[in-house]
């Protein structure tokens, strides 16, 4: 088959697959489908080729979607640097506790808290069409815009339906902390900070650690900050033990 004939056949098959044929054309094409040996298979193969092209591109696109997911997760996952860091922090921790009892306190927990506290940046919002998820994500947009009370209204309602949902518990705690209701924040964060299985375990320990810094419970603060593995934890532990 010449290239021109092959291309013309391709044009015709594509017009058929796209429902673009006139009545007359369609009748002729369907006759061919019924009566010409191998033609039906040819049409199916063109259909599969078109599907294959789209699938190949879609595969690339899924990788782009996934990179976005990983990028977001990497912001949430705090990197535990190395064993050396763990040993160093342990030594600092032990030294710090000793020195803490020997030296007068030379800093204010409140000012350290202010230096280190930045509200959780929140989660990527996708605006899922699912009712519950949409409500959660709508509230997450409010949270990220600093409208913590609005977010709390929604999340509290959702918590009534899902009292064990660690995401809700964590973000309710984070919202209370952001508006300065520290006692309430502590109640919620404590729950997640004791749940190693939660993806917010380290975050909750960081924010709970900061609350402990604020209330000058330094031993507990150091323990929580250490667990958090946050980048700034080492520095803050250093300042607490100075």
């Amino acid at each position, binding site marked *: 088959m010449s*290239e021109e004939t092959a291309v013309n056949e391709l044009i015709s098959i594509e017009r058929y697959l796209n429902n673009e044929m006139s009545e007359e054309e369609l009748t002729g094409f369907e006759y061919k489908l019924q009566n010409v040996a191998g033609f039906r298979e040819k049409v199916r193969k063109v259909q*599969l*080729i078109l*599907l294959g*092209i789209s699938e190949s*591109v879609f595969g690339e696109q*899924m990788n782009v979607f996934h990179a976005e997911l990983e990028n977001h997760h990497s912001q949430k996952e705090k990197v535990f640097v190395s064993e050396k860091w763990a040993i160093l922090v342990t030594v600092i921790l032990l030294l710090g506790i000793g020195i803490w009892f020997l030296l007068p306190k030379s800093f204010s927990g409140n000012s350290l808290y202010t230096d280190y506290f930045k509200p959780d940046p929140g989660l990527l919002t996708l*605006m899922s069409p699912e009712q519950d998820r949409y409500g959660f994500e709508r509230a997450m947009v409010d949270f990220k815009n600093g409208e913590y009370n609005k977010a709390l209204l929604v999340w509290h309602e959702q918590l009534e339906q899902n009292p064990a949902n660690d995401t809700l518990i964590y973000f309710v705690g984070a919202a209370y902390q952001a508006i300065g209701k520290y006692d309430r924040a502590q109640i919620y964060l404590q729950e997640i900070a004791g749940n190693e299985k939660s993806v917010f375990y380290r975050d909750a320990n960081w924010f709970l650690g900061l609350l402990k810094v604020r209330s000058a419970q330094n031993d507990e603060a150091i323990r929580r900050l250490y667990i958090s593995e946050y980048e700034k934890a080492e520095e803050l532990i250093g300042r607490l033990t100075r």
Partner: protein
Amino acid sequence: MGFKTLGSKKVNGGYINEHKADAALKELYLSNYLNIEKYILANHGTKEDAKDIYQEAFLVYWRNMKLGKFSTFHSNSISGYLLQIAKNKWIDILRREKRMNFVPLDEESQLYDLSEDLNEEEKDYIDIVKKHYDELGEPCKTLLKLFYFHKESMKEIAKFFSWTDATAKNNKYRCLQRLRDKVTDL
């Protein structure tokens, strides 16, 4: 058997244009991943396994949608459907590799019809097409991608390549025919 339309904007029914469809697919992809990752990680898998399994499951969903298998687009049922495909695929792997103690499928997750419109031979054929498409070279790859995946008009494609509309149309068919020849030559 009649052929369902493919490649036209009519295929998905619910979509007004493909850009909205892209955004909806992305949303769907992002919002369902963690659920499946959680399952794979709880059953001896790694994050890499979770990604592979999820993408396989998502491709099955997307393919069936393209082939017109789904007439409705309810995200709840899609989530359950994706989870079930992923679980089945992962259980197959666990059984094959004899990694034991996986979490069994519950009754609820068996509610979805997982049959596919393509047989194994057709799936293999698509894999061959994908391989040759990846090796097709430019400008054919981009041209076909813009037309068949992104649903750009020939006018837009012509503008993109600085071609006339007629050249764009001819080149599209030449590129498609070249791909067809490569696949047929096997």
